[in-house]
């Protein structure tokens, strides 16, 4: 049974595309045939993060409009045979995606793939709404920062009311919290919301914590998902996330104990 996972956040710049790239690569590396779709029509970037920007011929919108078939548009990753990328279109037409068109593509992918990862654009406009509409699971990428946490909460509300599962009264989308750009030393000083704080505010299950890391910029510079840079903390953190998602019991790393000051003087 294929699972469709949306990587979403509401707020921009929190690490959705970075997460989509590494998460889908991780699933593929674990032996699951995985397709990752860029829903950010007009602002395509997943291809760049995955290093296949020069191999884009057809895109998601071409497939929806039947100007190309799915196999022509899917780009097979050169590092992992199980990973396929469906790039976004660079069109400025806001209505290029439709609920029926997206549904048709996802149905077709389901016949061939174990996992479909949907990389959502920021915001709550059409692209973001369609990215989450068909999801079975949602990974909410959140930074330990007020505006990101608020937007994540808003996104949770949308997931529970505007998705296909909610409309058809099916079991709700499973929601997982992924905290990114986490800096335990700042948490310890009381300058940054802790994992526990964010979990408490959003009341969500924690999928993982990705520490703030220089390696992520280096990886995007090189067009390589950071999960492939095995020795780095970020790579290990993403690997843990994938393993945990696949049902392994992996202890949380990269979280130091909650800030001493925060606990003593916390309101």
């Amino acid at each position, binding site marked *: 049974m294929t699972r469709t996972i949306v990587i979403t956040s509401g707020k921009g710049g929190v690490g959705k595309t970075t997460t989509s790239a590494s998460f889908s690569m991780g699933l593929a590396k674990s032996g699951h045939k995985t397709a990752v779709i860029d829903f950010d029509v007009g602002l395509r970037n997943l291809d760049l993060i995955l290093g296949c920007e020069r191999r884009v011929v057809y895109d998601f919108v071409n497939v929806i409009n039947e100007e190309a078939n799915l196999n022509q548009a899917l780009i097979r990753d050169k590092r992992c045979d199980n990973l396929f990328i469906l790039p976004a279109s660079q069109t400025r037409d806001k209505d290029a995606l439709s609920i029926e068109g997206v549904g048709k593509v996802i149905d077709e992918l389901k016949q061939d793939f174990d996992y479909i990862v949907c990389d959502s654009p920021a915001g709550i406009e059409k692209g973001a709404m369609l990215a989450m509409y068909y999801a079975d699971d949602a990974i909410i990428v959140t930074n330990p*920062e*007020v505006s990101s*946490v*608020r937007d994540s*909460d*808003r996104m949770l*509300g949308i997931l529970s009311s505007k998705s296909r599962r909610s409309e058809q009264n099916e079991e709700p989308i499973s929601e997982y919290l992924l905290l990114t750009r986490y800096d335990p030393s700042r*948490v310890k*000083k*009381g*300058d*940054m*919301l*802790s994992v526990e*704080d964010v979990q*408490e*505010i*959003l009341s969500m299950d924690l999928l993982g914590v990705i520490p703030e890391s220089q390696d992520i910029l280096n990886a995007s510079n090189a067009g390589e998902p950071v999960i492939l840079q095995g020795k780095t903390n970020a790579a290990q953190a993403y690997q843990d996330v994938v393993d945990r998602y696949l049902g392994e019991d992996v202890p949380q790393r990269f979280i130091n104990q909650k*800030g001493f*000051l*925060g606990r003593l*003087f*916390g*309101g």
Partner: protein
Amino acid sequence: MSLLDFFRTTRPSSASVAKERLQILVAHEHSQRKTAPSYLPKLQKELLAVISKYVQINPDDMRVNLEQNDHEEILELSISLPDEKQEKPHKKSTPTHRRRG
């Protein structure tokens, strides 16, 4: 910030301030999410249209509110009718009429 403030150990960390603000905000937004179903604005508009057939009211004088308790929902409709004073004293009624006309 004075030097004294700097040494005051009771100053809350910025993270705990953030947490408190977010908790209040999220609780507020959740309560709004529950009490304001998407049909409410349309309901209000249509009610206003019906009432306007019989009484002239100001759209701001009408409130539609849905409250949720543990086991019941109350749809609260409050309309303040324009005061009928204009019919009684002669002095005041004229300017009111003029303003309306």
